């Protein structure tokens, strides 16, 4: 009986997702303004002879691909976790204001010299901002389960944080700062280096681990809060882990890549049916899917506008915003 829920078997699904991630990762390594053919690249990697090719590979493209992988996985995973806990299909770090407040935290840490004093200030600022953001939305939306209240609270936090981010950037003393608003609101992986990978990886990893621990309670929660509690899950604990894990992973990811929207919205939706509506499977699947989507989008911005790169968040919003609209319309139909 149960098997009929799945369109394809779970191991096959994860196999396909893993292949997608690997293909997108390799594509991200191969695409760039400098045309290096794959054979030259392979020779550079293994011989260490062609200095420029290996420099471009190891110092520019590899960190970019790794960041795309980590940031994408974070966004997919947190999107799935937030949607599971809130039982609200519109929840997503970008929409509920977590990404925007993470940007604000990172901006303050970066432009006012804290990150210059000690490098970890950047991800810490992002995490602090993300934590505050998710906490505020939680308090604003309260216990009311209405999607409307929740989205409104998210919109309020997002626009407030974005406004404060612009204010901070305009007040920053470096004349270039004001022009960098696009990066923080739309996100980009261009010309990042391994420094950014090392700065964010530990926190992203830890945050994702914490989020994975709530996969089973989220399964129980699909039956309702009372059912979950009678099954022995402590909802307060689940909520604390959700907030902590989201703050760590989204905060660190945003502090190095800016706020990339809609990945966390689209990916869980595409995979929900395929995982039989079970969060414990949807969470890891969304991490894979998020990584694949983000890496693909990042390859696309390099192909679509070489030289003058489009911000990756522009592309994800172009795909994500119509999707969001479609979800809202569908929900309205279901309600009426």
């Amino acid at each position, binding site marked *: 009986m149960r098997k009929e829920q799945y369109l394809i078997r779970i191991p096959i699904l994860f196999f396909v997702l893993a292949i997608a991630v690997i293909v997108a990762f390799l594509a991200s390594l191969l695409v*760039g*303004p*400098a045309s*290096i053919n794959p054979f030259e690249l392979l020779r550079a990697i293994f011989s260490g002879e062609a*200095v*420029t090719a290996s*420099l*471009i590979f190891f*110092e*520019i493209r590899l960190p970019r691909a790794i960041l795309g992988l980590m940031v994408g996985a974070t966004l997919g995973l947190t999107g799935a976790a937030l949607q599971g806990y809130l039982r609200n299909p519109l929840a997503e770090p970008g929409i509920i204001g977590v990404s925007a407040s993470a940007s604000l935290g990172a901006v303050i840490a*970066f*432009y006012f*010299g804290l*990150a*210059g004093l000690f490098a970890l200030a950047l991800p810490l600022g992002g995490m602090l901002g993300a934590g505050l953001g998710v906490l505020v939305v939680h308090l604003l939306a309260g216990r009311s389960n209405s999607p409307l209240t929740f989205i409104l609270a998210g919109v309020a936090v997002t626009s407030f944080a974005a406004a404060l981010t612009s204010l901070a950037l305009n007040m*920053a*003393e*470096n*004349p*270039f*700062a004001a*022009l*960098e608003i696009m*990066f923080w609101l739309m996100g980009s992986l261009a*010309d990042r*280096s*391994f*420094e950014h990978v090392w700065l964010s990886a530990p926190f992203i990893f830890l945050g994702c681990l914490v989020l994975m621990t709530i996969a089973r309670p989220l399964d129980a929660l699909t039956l309702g809060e009372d059912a979950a509690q009678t099954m022995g899950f402590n909802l307060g604990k689940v909520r604390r882990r959700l907030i902590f894990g989201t703050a760590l992973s989204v905060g660190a990811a945003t502090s190095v890549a800016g706020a990339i929207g809609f990945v966390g919205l689209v990916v869980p939706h595409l995979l929900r049916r395929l995982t039989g509506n079970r969060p414990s499977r949807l969470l890891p699947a969304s991490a894979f899917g998020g990584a694949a989507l983000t890496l693909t989008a990042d390859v696309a911005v390099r192909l679509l506008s070489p*030289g*003058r790169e489009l911000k990756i968040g522009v592309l994800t919003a172009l795909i994500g915003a119509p999707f969001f609209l479609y979800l809202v319309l569908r929900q309205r139909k279901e309600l009426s």
Partner: protein
Amino acid sequence: MAGNSLFIWLQRAFLALSLAVFLPGSGMAKPERIVSMNVCADQLLLLLADRQQIISLSNLATDQETSMMAEQAAGLPKNHGLSEEILQLEPDLILAGEYTTRPTVFLLRKLGYRVIVLPIATSLNDIRANIKTVAEAVGASERGRALVAEFDNKLPSAGMSENEADAPMAALYWANGFTSGEGTLASSVVKTAGFRNLGGELGIRGTGQVSLETLITSAPDLLILDAQRDKPAMATENLHHPALQKMFADHLRVSIPSNLWVCGTPVIADAIAELHAIKSKIMSYRKVDQK
């Protein structure tokens, strides 16, 4: 009576005319109340005019990151290039830039003020011409000639006279990945110092962006960077990218403060001399390598 008055009138007119022709007219007398509304004009003015001739400089005159002569400008009054401000100062000579404070220049000219608009220097010749213009306007032609001579003396004699294709290549790399191509002051500085300019060879005219990957695959011999500012911005992160630090040894990665390129001032000759010394080193390494 009528004839008499006509005679007197003619006499006066003749006198006025001859004064205008043979004596330096009032407009050409040494100006005593000079106002500059542009940071590049500020610096030439400080170099050429007597300090008591200057009654106001632009508000950027004391900005360390823009002007090379911020210290010398300290203590002098400043303006923001607004018409009302300038009129109140009752200037007898106004210096302005080509693109800034256009409405003010228009109004001042309409009211009959003497306004000199300095073109933006995009070559060493422009610098010489601007020095001459300002020197003559402030009544210090001799000082101007001396300054140009001193400038020319500092320049390396050879320049790009050697076989062009053989010359080492320099890459100019600014905040946000911008570079300077043909028709820029930075490019003529680099060329006078004896380098080819990567921006120009990539077909960039004026200022344009170059990706980090293109920069690395072009393998220039020397990397010239914007000097780091104290205040952080992501715009300048590209200058410290690990790939650049690995590719260029410390002595082949030089920083030049951006205020040197903002305006064409004779100070640029020192930078050219420094770059030329680096070029000679690169050429001597090459000879060792070839042997």
